[in-house]
């Protein structure tokens, strides 16, 4: 019950103020289409430099939680999901809003988000210390395989092409080797003075997540999003509470689905929301009402996408393996304060770890309270023209990258990686495995070298890296994720081909 011991730290004036700031800011940012939770958290990191580690993490954690929930506002009132995690919410949420039940849909979404989110954070609280204890037994070979697992799982599950996902992971791992080698002190791949000290993770994250969005906004030209904000009529919150309790099957399915999906690295909120929506529809007695403005659709989707937030941090806090791109950005937030998460995080920095987790618990409640009140304002912010949004994000990215080390080199790295990532994305590459490769590269290399030294002095490379049940288990998971993704890709291709043929036939007839 360590989390109760540190609960008081969340309520110090500065910590609570930052929690409020992160929550309200996150709700508004989350409602803005094009500003994903990952990008919002990446752009916030430079603002945490001068804060204490737990204060910085409170701000980032609150922003993460509330941007996911805030995306529901634009999904419901504008039919534009604030983030991919809110796609399923538009299906029933927007229809409810057009029928004059916008306020009810918003209330249901925030209440369901809070229930799902609280469950997810409780899972984080109880699962993390257990896993951390277990992870203490990991040696260099296990940590090496774990890092490779992190890159391959995200590379294969998060990408539309297995080969391109793995290739993006390799690019990230290679980028991580740029700079001075830790063992020999040799310079590697230094083709420009800007990268002589290696690639700093924070400017890289800002560039990889923010700049492609900026360029995507440019490609819309001078067009305007003519989405009309649907006005909301008052709806008693008491009735929304009753409705959420009445739809407990949808709430249960959403929460459990989100929690399980959150624990699997690489499977994001978008999948959680859609799977929960689909499963709730299957189990519902009123399945025919789904898609026509049914409250169960909103409850299932929103409880799922927030339930995954807590569990997605479990691999990060216990094994230092970020399970999602946003978790990777949070890792960047920890690294700038010299804190490396992993099995000993709870022993070396218990105050930082527990205050952060506790703040996420309180943040869920604050998010629910404020979400209900500032939804209207958030929807108006969501209509900011993309010209202004692109210029704002670009300005923040440049200033934020520079402020990391007061270096123009970081700004050049940020812009180069960002522009490069935009073009890579257009050709089917995903940013998530590249980021994971960049972050996990140093862990993989350090443990590979350390393991090689031990192996050469003892049993040899083959025996050291390829024997033992834990090595086998990790290798098996790597192979399973690659095989599963290949199988899914082939199956989907077949399905698409057949579908296309049917569509063509219909068009011809």
């Amino acid at each position, binding site marked *: 019950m360590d989390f109760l011991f540190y609960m008081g730290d969340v309520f110090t004036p500065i910590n609570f103020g930052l929690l409020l700031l992160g929550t309200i800011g996150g709700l508004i940012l989350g409602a803005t289409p094009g500003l994903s939770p990952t990008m919002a958290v990446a752009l916030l990191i430079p603002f945490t430099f001068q804060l204490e580690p737990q204060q910085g993490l409170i701000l980032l954690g609150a922003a993460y939680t509330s941007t996911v929930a805030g995306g529901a506002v634009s999904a419901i009132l504008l039919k534009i999901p604030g983030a991919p995690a809110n796609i399923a919410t538009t299906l029933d949420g927007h229809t409810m809003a057009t029928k004059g039940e916008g306020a009810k849909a918003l209330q249901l979404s925030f209440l369901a988000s809070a229930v799902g989110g609280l469950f997810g954070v409780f899972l984080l609280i109880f699962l993390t210390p257990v896993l951390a204890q277990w992870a203490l037994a990991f040696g260099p070979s296990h940590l090496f395989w774990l890092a490779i697992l992190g890159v391959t799982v995200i590379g294969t599950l998060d990408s539309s092409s297995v080969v*391109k996902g793995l290739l993006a992971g390799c690019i990230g791992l290679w980028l991580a080797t740029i700079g001075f080698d830790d063992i020999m002190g040799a310079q590697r791949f230094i083709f420009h003075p800007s990268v002589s000290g290696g690639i700093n993770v924070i400017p890289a994250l800002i560039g990889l997540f923010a700049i492609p969005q900026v360029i995507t906004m440019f490609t819309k030209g001078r067009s305007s999003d003519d989405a009309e904000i649907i006005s909301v009529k008052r709806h008693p919150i008491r009735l929304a509470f009753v409705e959420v309790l009445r739809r407990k099957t949808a709430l249960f399915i959403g929460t459990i689905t989100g929690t399980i999906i959150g624990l699997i690295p690489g499977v994001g909120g978008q999948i959680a929301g859609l799977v929960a929506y689909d499963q709730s529809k299957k189990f519902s007695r009123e399945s025919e009402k789904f898609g026509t403005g049914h409250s169960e659709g909103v409850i299932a989707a929103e409880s799922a996408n927030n339930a995954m937030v807590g569990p997605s941090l479990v691999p990060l806090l216990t094994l230092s393996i970020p399970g999602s791109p946003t978790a990777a950005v949070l890792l960047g937030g920890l690294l700038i304060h010299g804190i490396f998460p992993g099995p000993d995080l709870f022993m070396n920095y218990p105050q930082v770890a527990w205050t952060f987790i506790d703040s996420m618990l309180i943040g869920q409640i604050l998010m629910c309270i404020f979400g209900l009140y500032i939804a209207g304002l958030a929807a108006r912010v969501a209509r900011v023209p993309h010209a202004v949004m692109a210029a704002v994000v*670009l*300005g923040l990215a440049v200033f934020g990258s520079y402020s990391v080390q007061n270096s123009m080199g970081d700004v050049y790295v940020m812009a180069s990686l960002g522009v490069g990532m935009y073009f890579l994305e257009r050709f089917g590459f995903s940013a998530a495995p590249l980021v994971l490769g960049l972050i996990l590269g140093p862990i993989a290399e350090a443990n*590979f070298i350390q393991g090689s030294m031990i192996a050469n002095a003892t049993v040899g490379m083959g025996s050291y890296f390829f024997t033992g049940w834990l090595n086998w288990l990790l290798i098996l998971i790597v192979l399973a994720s690659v095989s599963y993704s290949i199988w899914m890709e082939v199956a989907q291709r077949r399905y698409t081909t057949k579908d296309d043929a049917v569509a063509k036939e219909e068009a011809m007839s």
Partner: protein
Amino acid sequence: MTSLPRSQHIIASGLIAAVGVTIAYISYTQEPAEAYVFPRLISSVFAVLAIWTFVKAVLGRTKVGNGISGDAMLKMAPGLVVTLVYVFWAAKALGFYTATTIAFFILVSLYDPAPHTQLKTWVKRIAITAGFMLVMYGLFAQLLNVFTPRETLF
């Protein structure tokens, strides 16, 4: 199959394959060899996957990635040019705040759907730029004490 010409995929995957092969070549030829043990491992996989992708593109079997349409290219080009000039030249040469003000104003003017002929539109754009710069100055110069390059101007 994507609808865009195969040539875009061939050029893109060809460039990536060239990078992969170059990295692998450097990893296997540079000294001290001990410093390149891990890069050799990574670059070998990188090169193999990149060549695989390139061969698939040449054979026209690329399944994902929509490439960039001519229309999108035309729309993004002015913004991209402004961004690159701002980041790689103006920010250092003119000073962060001056360069950001100019770049922000140009980008908003370029992509704002409001008509360019109305005075009200221009006043609004100037006001938005000024407001943003005030916030940036307050946040970075005053709150975070970040000393940005102030070369020629500010």
